[in-house]
């Protein structure tokens, strides 16, 4: 009996690890292949599936960093452009979402229930419906192609990314009421309570919001596609797309090198803060 049970357990273990390893390879292999392809000569890239370049070369990178369109833009400039709107977006989102979440999670006020329902309903509102009038609006304001990426940044001042507000509300509701009451007894007003009690307690959630907004804004393609028209202002998302379109598939080492450079900041941020990502995304759904 025992031996049979033991055998079964071993089989189960083997089964589990086999699945995990096979799926893991499927998940990671394309990314590793991408890294290795950037060091290969173009004739080698599609000649096999190996990861070690036979004739390692930096040609792809050399061409990647010198590529430019009309002399106005190169990969470094595009990176600078990207983070010149990503960072303000992150800061504005965090501040505006925290204020809003604090208001909804901690206070009852006139119409608070209806407003909360309206807030939640925007979680399901497809952006296609909003994009067209927003584009018309920003065109009339003269904000399209503005030098400060106004159409991309401005909405984040007003907590328009509902997901983050929702996530922060979920966290804020779990902060023990006693802490706030203690602050009140110490003579703190609502504003001081927010700064002294809630923000420190919410810090892990706030960091998660900042990280996700960083990733999503860096990846965002639709925003710059609609609102950035001048090559000198192109962010990475547009630059990478252009570099792929520009040739008919002969210089994949260059195209993949540009692509890889474009995601390096995201990779660094992800690997240095993995746990916050995991906790952030789980909390939004589970603690509700």
């Amino acid at each position, binding site marked *: 009996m025992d031996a049979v049970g033991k055998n079964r357990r071993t089989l189960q273990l083997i089964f589990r690890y086999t699945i995990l390893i096979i799926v893991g390879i499927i998940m*990671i292999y394309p990314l590793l292949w991408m890294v290795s392809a950037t060091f290969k000569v173009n004739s080698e890239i599609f000649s096999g599936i190996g990861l070690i370049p036979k004739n390692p070369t930096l040609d792809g990178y050399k061409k990647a960093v010198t590529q430019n369109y009309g002399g106005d833009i190169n990969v470094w400039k595009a990176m600078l452009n990207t983070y010149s709107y990503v960072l303000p977006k992150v800061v504005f989102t965090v501040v505006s979402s925290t204020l809003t979440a604090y208001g909804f999670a901690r206070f009852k006020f006139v119409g608070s229930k209806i407003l909360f329902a309206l807030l939640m309903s925007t979680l399901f509102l497809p952006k296609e419906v909003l994009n067209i009038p927003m584009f018309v609006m920003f065109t009339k304001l003269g904000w399209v192609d503005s030098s400060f990426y106004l159409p991309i940044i401005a909405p984040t001042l007003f907590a328009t990314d509902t997901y983050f507000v929702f996530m922060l509300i979920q966290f804020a509701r779990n902060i023990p009421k006693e802490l706030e009451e203690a602050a009140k007894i110490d003579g703190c007003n609502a504003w001081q309570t927010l700064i002294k009690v809630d923000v420190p307690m919410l810090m892990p959630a706030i960091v998660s919001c900042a990280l996700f907004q960083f990733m999503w804004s860096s990846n965002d393609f639709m925003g710059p596609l609609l609102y950035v028209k001048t090559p000198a202002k192109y962010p990475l998302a547009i630059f990478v797309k252009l570099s792929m379109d520009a040739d008919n598939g002969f210089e994949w080492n260059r195209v993949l090198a540009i692509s890889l450079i474009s995601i390096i900041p995201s990779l660094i941020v992800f690997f240095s803060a993995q746990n916050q990502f995991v906790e952030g995304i789980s909390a939004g759904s589970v603690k509700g």
Partner: protein
Amino acid sequence: MDSAASTHKSKFFKRNVGLFFILIWLIGFIIFKVYPFATSLYYSFTDMHLFNGIHKFGLFQYEKVFTTSKIMKSLKITFKYAFITVPLKLIAALFIAYILNFKIKGVNFFRTAYYVPSILGGSVAVAVLWKAVFKNDGIINTILGFFGVEGPNWLADPGKALWVICLLRIWQFGSSMVIFLAALKGVPADLYEAASLDGAGKWRQFFSVTIPLITPVIFYNLVTQLCQAFQEFNGPYIITNGGPLQSTSLVAYFVYKYAFEQYEMGLASAISWILFLILLVLTIIAFVSQRYWVYYSDDEN
């Protein structure tokens, strides 16, 4: 100022301090949500063109949507895309999360490996990579070649190109998996013990203990993934350009083409409103059906 009125005023403020904190959201909600939402509904009943403005009113844009076969086809493709992608993605996510939930050595390593594609997946860089992977001489076909299978020309075959777009999203099951994993950790261990004392095997336990307990999270993932799937844009725009033969022209792609390349804001708004109504109906169905299959711990059943 009358002192009675001012105390009345200050009382109002005292009772509604919360309003002060949500004020910026409320302003943004009106400017960036309510106004565009109402305006796009209005545009959908007009011949709004970005440069020519509005000259006609009526239902003609909706008529045009329902009589233009390529738009109807794109709605169909979008359904197909969503109903392939969402179930496969959720099944993969749940299955892997279930395995990871056993005492697995290196669980953090695996979790990271599965999660990276989700984090990077929305980027243009990964779309470019996907195009390289599914090229005619790309690694997928090279690997199929090892098994003696001659792979199709994925990106040029109207029957296969949609799968390339679907697989890109399914490959990003990591974020749903992380959510499932957190939910599975919350299932009390004594329930499994009770079930195994009753002689239930691992699979029985999975279907009769695990699944019912995490239905709220399945529900959450289902709704959010469905919403995302119906709005997919990057894949068709970057990888396939909607082709070949419009086989990957999802609705969001069409809305973009009409609105921002031909400036037909009226027609594009009508299409986007139909997309919105479809999503609304699906969300309502999901919410109403909840009571039949979603288990909340404070319920009787």
